[in-house]
């Protein structure tokens, strides 16, 4: 699994520009699934036939990560950028950023900006060019970049990286798709696009699948130092069974079933109530005539920063819980 995570994590995949990662995922899945398709928006939909074809299960993990888009190239060769998704400007500045073609730059802040005044409108990218003509040879308006890949083992079970949100869950979904026994229901593993800009990819893909049961896989913030919002999720505390976030109230039947499966299979779990932030869960829940929708969340520290931190035991718990549902259903 860790190799899968590393592979997905190193692919370029800013919201709206997920082709590199989606082609990696498609080639991984191609021979192992009954059907793999890519829709108009770029969602990858992988189908695995189940024992009971009267019901459909949809599993969604998003391929995209937050990043920046070049809006203007100034006379002095600096690139003005706008955020794609929920950028934390303080966390992103003074890091290396990489464009899809490998061009690198650094994300910096306008001179003389106080820490408290750092905002997305004060950010720009320096690609080492003194004039706009030189910069335009490297980059054009509309090109997108993200913080450069970075993967660090902090201790035997803890890893820090950018974009664990949500590559790690792509890896969990793919791993489950490869390794699970025959699913209980016809199962669609969907790798969605554009979640970070408003769960956009999950809408048409849910419409196409029209699931009866739906499970989103995403990260959830786990507090480290200080806990102003009094969140209960703990890093290393096991798979987080989502009860609510700002986009969805999970179907109680799913919460109940996840709990049963975790208890029966000795899987470490905890409950999650997230105050801010949405997931693909809601799009699946309200698609067509609606579905029973839940979410298995991976506790993650420092979400939307270049150093998102996770615990290997939690990954294992999430994968086990997902596998249990896929194989045993309701």
């Amino acid at each position, binding site marked *: 699994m860790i190799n899968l995570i590393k592979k997905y994590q190193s692919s370029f995949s800013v*919201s*709206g*520009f997920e082709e590199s990662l989606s082609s990696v995922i498609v080639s991984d899945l191609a021979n192992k699934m009954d059907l793999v398709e890519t*829709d*108009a*928006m770029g*969602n990858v939909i992988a189908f695995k036939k189940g024992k009971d074809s009267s019901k459909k299960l949809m599993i969604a993990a998003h391929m995209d990560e937050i990043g920046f*888009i070049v*809006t*203007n190239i*100034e006379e002095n060769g600096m690139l*003005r950028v*706008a955020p*794609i998704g929920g950028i934390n400007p303080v966390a992103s500045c003074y890091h290396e950023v990489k464009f899809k073609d490998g061009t690198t730059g650094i994300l910096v802040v306008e001179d003389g900006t106080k820490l408290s005044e750092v905002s997305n409108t004060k950010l720009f990218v320096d690609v080492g060019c003194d004039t706009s003509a030189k910069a335009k040879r490297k980059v054009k*308006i*509309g090109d997108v970049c993200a913080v450069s890949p970075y993967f660090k083992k902090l201790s035997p079970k803890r890893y820090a990286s950018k974009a664990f949100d949500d590559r790690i869950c792509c890896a969990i979904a793919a791993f489950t798709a490869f390794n699970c026994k025959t699913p209980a229901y016809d199962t669609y593993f969907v790798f969605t696009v*554009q979640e970070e*800009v408003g769960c*956009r*990819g999950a*809408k*048409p*893909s849910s*419409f*196409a699948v029209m699931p009866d049961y739906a499970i989103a896989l995403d990260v959830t913030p786990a507090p480290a130092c200080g806990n102003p919002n009094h969140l209960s999720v703990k890093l290393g505390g096991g798979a987080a069974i989502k009860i609510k976030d700002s986009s969805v109230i999970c179907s109680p039947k799913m919460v109940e079933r996840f709990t049963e499966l975790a208890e029966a299979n000795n899987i470490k779990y905890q409950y999650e109530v997230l105050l801010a932030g949405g997931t693909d869960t809601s799009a699946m829940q309200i698609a067509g005539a609606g579905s029973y929708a839940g979410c298995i969340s991976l506790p993650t520290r420092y979400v939307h920063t270049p150093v998102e931190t996770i615990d290997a035991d939690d990954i294992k718990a999430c994968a086990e819980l997902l596998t249990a549902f896929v194989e045993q259903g309701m």
Partner: protein
Amino acid sequence: MKDLLKKYCDILGPSGMEDSVREAIIEDIKSSGCEYETDFVGNLIVFKKGKKRRNKKVLFSAHMDEVGFMVKYIDEDGYARFDSVGGIDRRVVSGKRIRFCESGVNGVISSKAIHLQPMEERGKCPPISEMYIDIGASDRKTASEYIAVGDCAVFEPNYEEFGEGLIRSKALDDRFGCAALVKMINSDLEYDTYFAFNTCEEIGCDGAKEVSHRIQPDIVIALESTTAGDILGVPKSKCACAVGQGAVLSIMDRSTIYNKELLELAVTTANEKSIKWQYKNVVAGGNEAGAYQRGAKGAKVLAISAPTRYIHSASNVLAISDIEAVYSLAASLNERSFE
């Protein structure tokens, strides 16, 4: 195309009341050999056969509605309290001439004369909740003979050419798009094509949502007005696009990250045909493309826009050359098979 533009711009058609616009468009396309229908929410959906079929269902879209005002209360003095329909900056409202759609009654939006303003009110714009529409009635009873709660008004028709090849008018957003689509429908097409003239874009792209589910297109190209920032006080890095500089291609706005293949195809096509074009260089605004991209099973979407100054005011300003560029680019793209 200028005849069409003037005709469409001068029609009164705020969101939810697009009937007159739709009737005028039907009149202009009905002898072109196309099939058309009006759906439950008032969208006009047109199918025109071309010389060939393509595997992909391609739809061009523009919206018929414009921003406007709705009466919510008529007071004892005969003044009508109102709210805006769609996003209108209250600073461009005060003192404007307006016309009611139902009755054709003319009115003026209040603006307290500077002579009556105490010092603390000067230079400030009151919220819309403190403005009212004056239709020249002396009391509630008289006013109620002409207008009722729920009636809608728009800026008074004022289409005019001015300056060097420019037009100033209300509702150029998006009647110019309607005019461009009508011109396409009335020409010989290479491929079978769908066209949608939509309702209620200004209040949340409601019409497009319906069309998206009904037609389920594979590719959608929206023709829209977009904010031109070539005005005083906007730095070049934030100007979005400029009037006279050609058709605008958006890469990303608040509602959509546009399909890259379509964007590249548009750029190639524009360059091949020497059509003037520009990128929109800020991430702002949004249009129907977003509704199509995520409606039903989803679609690949592109927006071709005309740079428009003072959008959503009584005087949108647009260059005729830009409208021609948007039309040429849309028509040229429609000669592609999209394989």
